[in-house]
């Protein structure tokens, strides 16, 4: 909805930035901290738009996900079209365009973990958390996502929760692992 309104405001897809920088979700939507971190990234690249992935990472770090408001604010700040920013944001699977829980569980579903039966781990997580891939628990604690090869094939099956990698995971280990996250 918001994206549609923003797109209506835009007369051109990119270039004419004034149309939406004056809108509700201009660059001032970003916090001082976010802007200062983005400025640092911009200083490292030849032109502003080259910092867009870093900008998305920064805003996601502070807000947990990338909302339509964040897309348009980043676009305004980097003098890009909102659709351009969104085309990048939606390309990369670890930029979240929907809200996620406080912790994101990534279950490796690639080939070595397939052979070592990641399916059993997924089934157990589904039962324990009462959610499927792509869903978030009612208390907003966990989001469950499939992920391509975590590069831990000699210790399959593997899962990652936030920054923590768990190897040789068994169904019996899951309760103890999940307890660490609140």
């Amino acid at each position, binding site marked *: 909805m918001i994206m549609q309104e923003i797109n209506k405001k835009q007369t051109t897809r990119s270039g004419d930035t004034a149309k939406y920088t004056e809108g509700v979700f201009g660059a001032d939507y970003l916090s001082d901290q976010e802007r200062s971190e983005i400025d640092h990234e911009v200083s490292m690249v030849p032109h502003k738009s*080259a910092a867009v992935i870093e900008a998305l990472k920064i805003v996601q770090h502070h807000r947990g996900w990338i909302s339509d408001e964040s897309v348009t604010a980043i676009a305004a700040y980097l003098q890009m079209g909102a659709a351009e920013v969104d085309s990048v944001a939606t390309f990369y699977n670890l930029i979240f365009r929907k809200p996620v829980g406080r912790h994101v569980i990534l279950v490796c579903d690639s080939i070595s973990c397939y052979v070592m039966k990641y399916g059993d781990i997924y089934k157990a997580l589904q039962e324990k958390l009462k959610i499927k891939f792509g869903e978030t628990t009612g208390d907003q604690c966990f989001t469950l996502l499939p992920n391509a090869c975590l*590069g831990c094939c000699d210790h399959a099956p593997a899962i990652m929760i936030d920054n923590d990698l768990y190897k040789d995971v068994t169904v019996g280990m899951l309760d103890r692992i999940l307890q660490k996250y609140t």
Partner: protein
Amino acid sequence: MERPLTQFIHPGCPPFDLREYEMTGGYSALKKALAGMTPLEVQKLVQDSGLKGRGGAGFNTGMKWSFVPMGDAAPHPKYLIANADEMEPGTFKDRLLLEGNPHQLIEGMILSAYAIQAGVSYIFLRWAYKKAAQLLRKSIHEAYTAGLLGKNILGSGFSLEMHLHTGVGRYMCGEETALLNALEGKRATPRAKPPFPQVSGLYGKPTIVNNVETLCNIPHIVNNGAAWFKGLSNSEDSGTKLYGVSGKVNTPGCWELPMGVTVRELIEEHAGGMQNGYQLKGVLPGGASTDFLTAEHLDVKMDFGGVQAAGSRLGTGTMVVMDDATCPVGFVHNLQHFFAQESCGWCTPCREGLPWVEKMLMSLEEGSGTAEDVELLQMHTQLLGPGNTFCALAPGAMEPLQSALKYFREDFDRHIQLHRCPYENGHH
């Protein structure tokens, strides 16, 4: 047996810091090159050593470098990029080098940058490698503090900046031109070649993208020479290789061994053989995008020529073992699900073809497949094969499919006859 890349890597122990790395000979190759070798001499040495790219393509590294314009008239800055976006399913070798000895990679990068006279370097690291990111940040900082990075390195007049870039997912980022687009803040779609990145790469400037393992070899080649490097191997391809085995073997892992060990040696000696009750049915020798080998191929040498002669590719050298309790149709379906999901959507055969392939395999696995589906799958291995797509993703995806249809055709047929998956560990 010499293991130059991993001699100082002890899994479970923290890697060497700068002081420890230097005490064991670290950065001596850099000092040697900066003091007494011209950039072209370094290029020539690496070319003569026969080092071939360890990311999967197997192209002579020194030769790749030789396409970079040199001299004062060359465009600048030139870029040197370490491809640390390890994401080929079944591959976990660069992780060992990144976490085990980050300074070895940094020294290899400075030497390689010197050889092509690059002024800026990036490590493109995949998002999931959190520990490696932390270690690399610390090591890059140490190198800057010691004057090994930055302006006028060790008083040589050569300058190099180094940045760590962590990705946000997508297999495509490992393709070298897609990686460049990702670094420029764009969608990671591949670029047309020519122009090759060596001439027009990052921001249109000459750029070299090398795999982590490739770069880690450079300090050792500079220190010990081309003849030594050739002597490490027991095959016509030089050097050692990081090999890995995963699947239902007794001791899955990653080992540095002379280039050219056999499939049998890897599985039986290093990986401890198959787990009790399981037999080997097939192996992907070098990651998800390589053709199957079977029990007939156990004596194939794991070097570029040997695996190619057996109808597959060395790829990343990290093999996935398929046991006899795992359904080949389900196995290949898992691979095609990955490739369909990771297709960047840039060109039609890949974007449209891979999801169709995935759906046909799914219907076979669920028991609703027909003989016509198998024919269509066979046809797709041609349609999505080399020459019809922008990059190597779809042709790579077709490799395990075409060889599964060749070696495990009976399994496909049984799914059709029984209207279900005959394996207990089948569809899930």
